[in-house]
């Protein structure tokens, strides 16, 4: 199969959906003429014009309000927030309005929009441009939260998100944009709420999200050379969560390491850990549920410090090894 980047896969999804459905349009800062801060929407302005690829002033709340309103009128907007950090500014519309309208109108109104935004550290963008705030939105009933980790998932999940009748927070990762992988040319969807076993193993389960899936797979390859077979599970959508494959995997291996980039405290790992502990997998645990997550600190600008602020492959290898060898 043809290999393209994560960024290209997203662009292809947008293009194919915009060609398929005239209700789909793009709105955000520098998404049009500039082609997006990370180039995801490059070329779309040329193809679809300023009516469907709309550059906005620097007002995240405005973008969020616009897509909420547009969605209510039957459009299928795809908003973009340049850095996830500024989802904080868009939160009022997303959290207090978009997430609640369908419920408060007894299901008579739908909000079929997607809010795309890149999260994550590793680009030297410092504390205000590097956060992973997915759990802020996981916490809000009425929002779906999607975090693709591969080009294939990025395309399939974005198309599914655009076609979904609910507000979807679609979280990309800056370091994944250049990652290449096999992606079919024709449009396809991956259901929201379908986890995937990215690698099979018997000794240990790693549940990872976003860029940590890639790092966990790399760690798993290293550990395999030591005879430790790691199973890597990617939830792909944090909400709704497909818990079954995670629970089955933990019942198989008895040991689980949860890896995410967001700060550990209040992070999604706590939710996953509790879910596992509450499930039938509890009786199969052979060690405490272990989380490996970002340090509880702002992401430093200093590249060395930034590197150590979030889990890296070697941290995953070390922690997984400890867990698999029964030292935890």
């Amino acid at each position, binding site marked *: 199969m043809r290999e393209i980047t994560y960024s290209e896969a997203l662009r292809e999804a947008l293009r194919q959906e915009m060609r398929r459905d005239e209700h789909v349009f793009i709105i955000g800062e520098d998404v049009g003429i500039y082609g997006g801060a990370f180039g995801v929407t490059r070329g779309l302005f040329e193809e679809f014009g300023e009516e469907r690829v709309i550059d906005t002033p620097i007002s995240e709340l405005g973008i969020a309000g616009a897509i909420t309103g547009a969605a209510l009128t039957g459009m299928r907007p795809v908003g973009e927030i340049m850095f996830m950090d500024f989802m904080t500014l868009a939160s009022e519309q997303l959290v207090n309005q978009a997430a609640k309208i369908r419920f408060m109108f007894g299901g008579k109104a739908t909000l079929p929009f997607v809010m795309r935004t890149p999260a994550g550290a590793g680009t030297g963008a410092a504390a205000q441009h590097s956060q992973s705030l997915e759990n802020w939105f996981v916490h809000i009933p009425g929002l779906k939260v999607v975090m693709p980790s591969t080009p294939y998932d990025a395309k399939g999940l974005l198309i599914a998100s655009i076609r979904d009748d609910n507000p979807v927070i679609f979280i990309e990762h800056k370091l994944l944009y250049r990652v290449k992988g096999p992606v079919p040319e024709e449009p396809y969807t991956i259901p929201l709420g379908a986890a995937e076993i990215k690698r099979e193993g018997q000794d240990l389960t790693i549940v990872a999200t976003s860029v940590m899936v890639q790092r966990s797979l790399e760690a798993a390859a290293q550990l395999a050379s030591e005879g430790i077979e790691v199973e890597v599970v990617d939830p792909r959508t944090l909400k709704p969560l497909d818990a079954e494959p995670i629970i089955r995997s933990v019942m198989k291996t008895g040991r689980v390491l949860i890896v995410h980039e967001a700060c550990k405290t209040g992070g999604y790992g706590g939710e996953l850990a509790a879910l596992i502990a509450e499930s039938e997998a509890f009786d199969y*645990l*052979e060690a405490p549920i272990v989380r490996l997550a970002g340090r509880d600190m702002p992401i430093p600008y200093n590249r060395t410090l930034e590197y150590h602020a979030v889990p890296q492959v070697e941290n995953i290898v070390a922690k997984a090894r400890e867990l698999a060898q*029964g030292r935890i």
Partner: protein
Amino acid sequence: MAIPVIMPKLEMTQETATIIEWLKQEGEEVEKGEPLLVVETDKITVDIESPASGILAGVCAGPADVVPVTEIIAYLLKPGEAAPQEVVSAPTPPSPPPTATPVARRLAATAGLSLGEIAGTGPSNKICKADVERAIAAQSAPPPAKTRATPAARRIARERAVALRTVTGSGPRGRVQAADVLTSTITPERPEQAAEVIPLQGIRRTIAERITDSYQGVPHVYFTMRVDMGEFEKARASLNARMQRAAVPHVSVTVLLVKAVAWALKRHPWLNSTLRGAEIHLLPEINVGIAVALEEGLIVPVVRHADLKGVAEIARRVNELVTRAREGRLTPADVAGGTFTLSNLGPFGIEQFTAIINPPQAAILAVGATRPEATVSPEGQIVIRPVLRMTLAADHRIIDGALAARFLAELREVLENPTLLLW
């Protein structure tokens, strides 16, 4: 003040217990700590001690009754006191509840202690933390520490009815892992048993030393021969027929073998010799030792001058020696002076074996059982014959192979033709 006897809670999850029997009867006096009744939980049957001294009264549950824990089942009264009426429903008029600090109450509740049992030392006899701690310490056994185990280990232990406490944990800080439980179900739970230790002494030590010296110091060489025992058995049968009438002991295979061996030794004096330094001594007497197995070890009493004795005399002598050996009454003279040893394990069903020379002798004959075997007759026919295998171990320093072979051939000849003994 009537003291209630309650159904005790013996296990964390226990809700009821069944009364098996009262060990004291209504109206009987009991001492504090005396066994009062026997109850059964779903796990154990246990004697319940009397919580206080007094007269047993108001027994309201009998054998086979299932009683919820903490329910009052009887009272202990002082002389002249009456049991409270309506035992179950009416609580005894409450004595002023003992006052206690909140922490003391919590501690007491956690430890399952009734505040009434604790003497307060605080202001106005208030029960304080230290009082409860003393009371807890006074309880016979401290609560056992919780077993650390993974959920998976607990599940498997539950499924296989393994007591986690008995499993040694291999995980961090001794935590029991699933594999530990699985292993414990394979190996029995009893501790490894230590070997029974018996000091090497007495006859056992003598045997050990002599056998080691012989086996290490004497170059052994072995020769095995098959013997057709048909004629031998006929001769033995006819001898035994006569012996019976003469009230002489039974002629065993061993007895007749002693006679035959002595006969052959007479013709091969080198087999009846000993090596002393640079000299080979061909011995003037033929004294055949017989290996006798005793509980405490092997002993070899000797039939002296076996070549000069008749079968009846040998039989008497062997019988006497074996009896005395079994009774532990052998004298030094009985076991001294042997010049050749015969070891017959035929009675045990052994077909063939090798023996270690009994120094300073030059050879030993190991004899197996006589068993019917398919044999080729001189006419070339396959016939079933009683066959015995004997193996000679010889000191190769003084006995060459050919010499040993000639001795064995001669011995076989006499065994197969017992009339030669008359020669």
